[in-house]
């Protein structure tokens, strides 16, 4: 296997190729870092109506269609005023995208899925700038 990796990418030293392969295998077991869990936890810290169970894979939420709702939905119960608190919670959980989180409008009519999409893309963009 090491031979194969070496022959396909001659510029990469053998021991680094092996390490990269091991890291990739380990990361694959973790799953993508898309910020979805952090968004759910930040909401849960703002309202007791929403709970998150991280012991399942993937994690589960109450309500189970949390991301299909808006922040001001009756099952979520976040007001415009509380949006700034949700953003502050999310900033602590995802400090690497603080600037992007600050730009989220403090409008509780926002669809949660759309905010999760912004967070996911921000994390990918941060990944790019880090590399």
């Amino acid at each position, binding site marked *: 296997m090491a031979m194969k990796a070496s022959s396909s990418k001659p510029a990469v030293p053998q021991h680094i190729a092996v390490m990269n392969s091991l890291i990739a295998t380990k990361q694959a077991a*973790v*799953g993508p*870092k898309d910020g979805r869990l952090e968004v759910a936890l930040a909401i849960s*810290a703002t309202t007791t109506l929403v709970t998150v169970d*991280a*012991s399942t894979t993937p994690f589960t939420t109450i309500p189970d269609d949390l991301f*299909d709702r808006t922040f001001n939905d009756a099952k979520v119960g976040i007001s415009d005023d*509380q949006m700034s*608190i949700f953003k502050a919670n999310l900033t602590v959980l995802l400090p690497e995208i603080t600037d992007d989180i600050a730009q*989220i409008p403090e409008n509780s009519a926002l669809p949660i899925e759309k905010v999760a999409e912004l967070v996911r893309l921000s994390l990918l963009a941060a990944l790019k700038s880090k590399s």
Partner: protein
Amino acid sequence: MKIKLCTLLFGFLLLASISSVAQTTGQQYKVDTSSLSLFPVPNFYANVRFTDPLDSSAGSDLAIDNIEITSTPTHPFSVEDVQRQPGTKKGIQVTFTGDPPTDVTSAHICFHKLNFLDSQNKTHGVSEVCGNPEIETSASVAGQRDSVLNDLKTVPKTSAEKNIFASGFTTTASSGTDGGVNLNLNSNELGVPGLTVFLHLDKATSVGGDPKRFEAGPNFRNILLFGRADLQQMQKDIAELRTNPPTQRRAELIDELNKIEGKKRFWSAVLIDFSGQLEGEALNFNVTNFIGNGQIQLQSRTQRLFGSNSGFWRVRLVPAGMEGGKNVNSTTTQAATATSQSSSPEDFVARVKAGGQLTLFYENTDNPFPLKRVDLDLGLVQRYLFFKEAQVSGSPGVATIFNSGRKPWYQASLKIYLVDTPKGKYGFQLSYNNGSLPPAFSNTKSFQFGFLFESSDGEDAKPAKK
């Protein structure tokens, strides 16, 4: 009068019922949005969001051989795993192994068969559900992020919270009152985190029901989270989980995450605001002040209503606030002649304030009784004026007086929705205001009643008014 009101109410409910019967709901069973992230593992994945919820009991939807993905130019995609996206019934995530191709210009993803749920929770099998995912690469992702952010900024506001603590803490659209306007606008697009610009206008034409309030200016907010340490611990735990720790350690981390998440904290944050504002008697500015305002607010987490899933309540307290500044105009009307004028005896303005706001919400569309939803907002603010300020009369030609001391303001708003249709909700609203607000401190005591229609997309409208 009573007969007229009953006739109006009957007609209104009849209209609502007819509207209810005319509703139709349709399913689409299609791909709504999809994306293909071409970043190194673990961020080499496709997200697919559908127009309708999927049947979570249909395990065959997630079979690897149920999915086919092709690209231009052609590349093999080795599927590692297929999972439902957490927190939604409409999303599936497909993760891939290997190195992501870097030259993909377009892609096509198909699910050979998917099981959707309709509005009655009946399963519908649909074949060949396909979409063309948006390609996300390191070159495109920043632009795609900005595009989503712009979309978020165009989402219309729907709530109508009224902030009585003065200084741009709410973001609402305008809503009509009886012969008047209550307008609250905010903007956070100043490029400085925590800085907003606000404008409040509260003006009515009815005698005794007009607070004559206008204020505008910038506001800076700082937030102190009660749960910051817990959130920081969560962040560390999640980061460690991502290193794929040994099984026992993983279990410990997940247990700790769940314990922190389940903490019964009542208060969520302290909000500290500082603002500079121009406040004036709406709309003639006969009384005008430049004010600096600082206040502390305690915001609770949203709480379940009596532990049920049908409602919630939350509270915000203002234990202390100060307003101080300079009076720049108090050219006021004197006596019944309405011709002579006098100025304020004081140059400066100094006030302290405290108050609170309670929001209660109940919704149960399955309730057999005609009480589908109830919104109740109660608010009060107590101000104490150290210097004499103008108190403009609500009646024309009555002299303005100058006094100091306690100036309370109470407000209550009750919305009751009786009919719930797929297109919207129908009901009525009662509101009560009593007291006075700066800078005119015009004595206000008003009671309003109106019919309500709230469309399903959240837009408020008022088709009729009494």
